């Protein structure tokens, strides 16, 4: 049946179109006294079978982007105020609620940081797994149960049969995340959105779960959007990365390019502000001064400018568009030849990127940084 879905879907779009295409997505939250500019014109593509990272710190809009894709923004505050989310050419942003419900789970599935709120505490794992299966497919109760057992085996849960009768609280954090992955992959979705899937887990358990996600999605050819703040996780899991800051994508490209030649001051800053387990001894950390901007104010200029050591006067008034680092024209957005792009008026030179700070007098530091308010 999935096969039929896939065929139908493939027929509906151009041969070269990516699986998912997000275009100029704008999401705002209206509260009683303010509007929060959560996502301001984000565009990215995901091709079949690709694993794409969405990296950034709290509040950068990475999770909101994906809630918007799934149409799960908290209502009524959160609204998609612009842009399109094309899955196989169909605009999810414009779809009726009943249509999007069919897509969720079947075509696009999601795993969250904390599996507990996503699992129903008063239903057994069996009831929850088979519910997903039977909601989307016409299968018998016995078949659904067998499929549920197979799924638990797939995600490496020992003694799957007795475990089906357990409730979520009877599983450890790592095991719960495995159950979530089983539920997400139950219908063989074509796109899996993993929102900080291992942030709540210990590092040895994180290694188990990441390996599981990597193995399963490679085996099934599922595309993955991996949302995380952990640059180490991104480095090991993804082929391409989009770096987000304050509602914008500031750098995008192949994972190898971005780590080898980070080009946006924010990416450079991030890489210099984390101690690395393989780093040299006594290596100095260069913090990014200040704090992220107040997103209740409409963005003016480059969002990173107030904290940027490379900023110029122009950065404070004019938000740079994202263009190829090497200045070439048309950009490749997906696959192994994706163009390395940044949104910056005054990018650091490679030597400065390596040093983590401007080398000559360079940027004129305008005004004081450091006040979050």
């Amino acid at each position, binding site marked *: 049946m999935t096969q039929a879905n896939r065929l139908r879907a493939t027929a509906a779009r151009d041969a070269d179109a990516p699986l998912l295409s997000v275009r100029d997505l704008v999401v705002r939250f209206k509260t009683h006294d303010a509007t929060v500019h959560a996502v301001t014109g984000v565009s990215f593509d995901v091709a079949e*079978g690709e*694993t794409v990272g969405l990296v950034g*710190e*709290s509040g950068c809009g990475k999770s909101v982007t994906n809630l918007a894709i799934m149409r799960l923004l908290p209502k009524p505050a959160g609204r998609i105020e612009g842009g399109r989310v094309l899955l196989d050419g169909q605009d999810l942003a414009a779809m009726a609620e009943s249509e999007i419900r069919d897509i969720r789970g079947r075509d696009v599935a999601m795993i969250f940081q904390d599996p507990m709120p996503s699992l129903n505490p008063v239903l057994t794992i069996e009831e929850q797994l088979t519910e997903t299966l039977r909601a989307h497919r016409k299968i018998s109760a016995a078949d659904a149960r067998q499929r549920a057992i197979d799924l638990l085996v797939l995600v490496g849960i020992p003694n799957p049969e007795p475990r089906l009768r357990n409730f979520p609280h009877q599983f*450890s954090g*790592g*095991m719960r995340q495995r159950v979530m992955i089983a539920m997400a992959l139950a219908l063989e979705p074509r796109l899996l959105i993993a929102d900080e899937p291992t942030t709540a887990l*210990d*590092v*040895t*358990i*994180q*290694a*188990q779960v*990441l*390996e599981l996600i*990597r*193995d399963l999605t490679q085996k099934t050819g599922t595309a993955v959007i991996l949302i995380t*703040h*952990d*640059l*180490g*996780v*991104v*480095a*090991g*899991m*993804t*082929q391409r990365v989009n770096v987000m800051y304050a509602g914008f994508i500031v750098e995008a490209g*192949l*994972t*190898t390019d971005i*780590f*080898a030649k980070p080009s946006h001051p924010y990416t450079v*800053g*991030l*890489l*210099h*502000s*984390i*101690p*690395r*387990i*393989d*780093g040299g*001894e006594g*290596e100095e*950390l*260069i*913090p*990014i*001064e200040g*704090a*992220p901007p107040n997103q209740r104010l409409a963005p003016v200029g480059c969002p990173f400018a107030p904290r940027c050591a490379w900023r110029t006067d122009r950065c404070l008034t004019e938000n740079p568009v994202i263009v190829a680092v090497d200045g070439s024209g048309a950009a490749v957005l997906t*696959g*192994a*030849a994706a163009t390395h792009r940044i949104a910056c008026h005054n990018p650091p030179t490679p030597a400065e990127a390596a040093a983590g700070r401007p080398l000559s007098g360079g940027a004129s530091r305008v005004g004081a940084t*450091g006040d*979050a*308010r």
Partner: protein
Amino acid sequence: MTHSITPQAATAAGTSPLLEVEDLAVWFPITEGVVFERHTGDVRAVDGVSFSIRRGETLGLVGESGCGKSTTGRAIVRLYKPTRGAIRIDGTDLAGLEGVELRNMRRRMQMVFQDPYASLDPRMNVASIVAEPLEIHGVGTGSERRERVGELLSTVGLDPSHAVRYPHEFSGGQRQRIGVARALALQPDLIVADEPVSALDVSIQAQIINLLGRLQDSFGLTYLFIAHDLSVVRHVSDRIAVMYLGRIVELATAKELHDRPLHPYTVALLSAIPIPDPVREVSRRRIILQGDVPSPVNPPSGCHFHTRCWLRERLGNPEQCVAEAPMPRDLAAGHQVACHFAEKTDGSAEQVLSIGRPVPSASTAPVAPPPTTAGA
């Protein structure tokens, strides 16, 4: 029992241990029944931990959730009463102290907490928060305290004029600076920092790590730095103790622990940490530990790690690991390991962190290269 007011005096003593912890155990009782409480078991959060910290040194205490690292830290500042063992500051055992004597000793050790949102009272302004320890210990007059608060705020990189503001007016990083200022107020010798940067965004973490380092240099502070993130711990620590299920399994200098980890758990921990470098990640070999950390209510017999140990599996599951708890042994100068078979680990850094010789074990899993970048 004179208290050294100037931190300079504290550093003058050189390398004598400021803090000695000996066979510390903290057990939390589990009870059943409402009217007649029966004691049915214990959560053995910390179960026989010994280490010492020299003046001016940073000892990192690292381990996964539930390993007892935070409980150890809290027992040291006597937020928990130890079940057994000794905690000595300059030779005075805290475990036996009560009342005024305990309060006087507490001036010498302060704590910085993980969550800068929960550890600051939202109804107190910054001046009251930072001055509170001074008031409790009756230090200075009102105007002296106000002056001191201003000094402390500038020391941690905040604007002294913000003293009248309330915690909600600050960002996470700034709140953590307030917590640090409060900890410094009484000029303590020892600061127990329990996950001081884990709740902060990565770009802010480095600000606090650098601040703590700068303060140590200027005030001769001694740190017990508790964290789950071995990369951060390695960056800030002189020596590192690795905990697993209530016990220290390995204790060595930061360099030694990184270059030559000897306990199989440390090796697995190092191999599990993602490195922000896709080229190295692709070529790395991971030791994936099977299963979860067992319950501290009913820890495994013998070596607590034997249920998940890759080395034991490789050695054909020797009975000694199940029967006998390994005592910490000195395997090199200042490098203690609690493992019967640590000599067989060969956990050199290249093996764990990089390409080359993989750990020959059944549970070793290569990291699969991401397919589309293979040619790039």
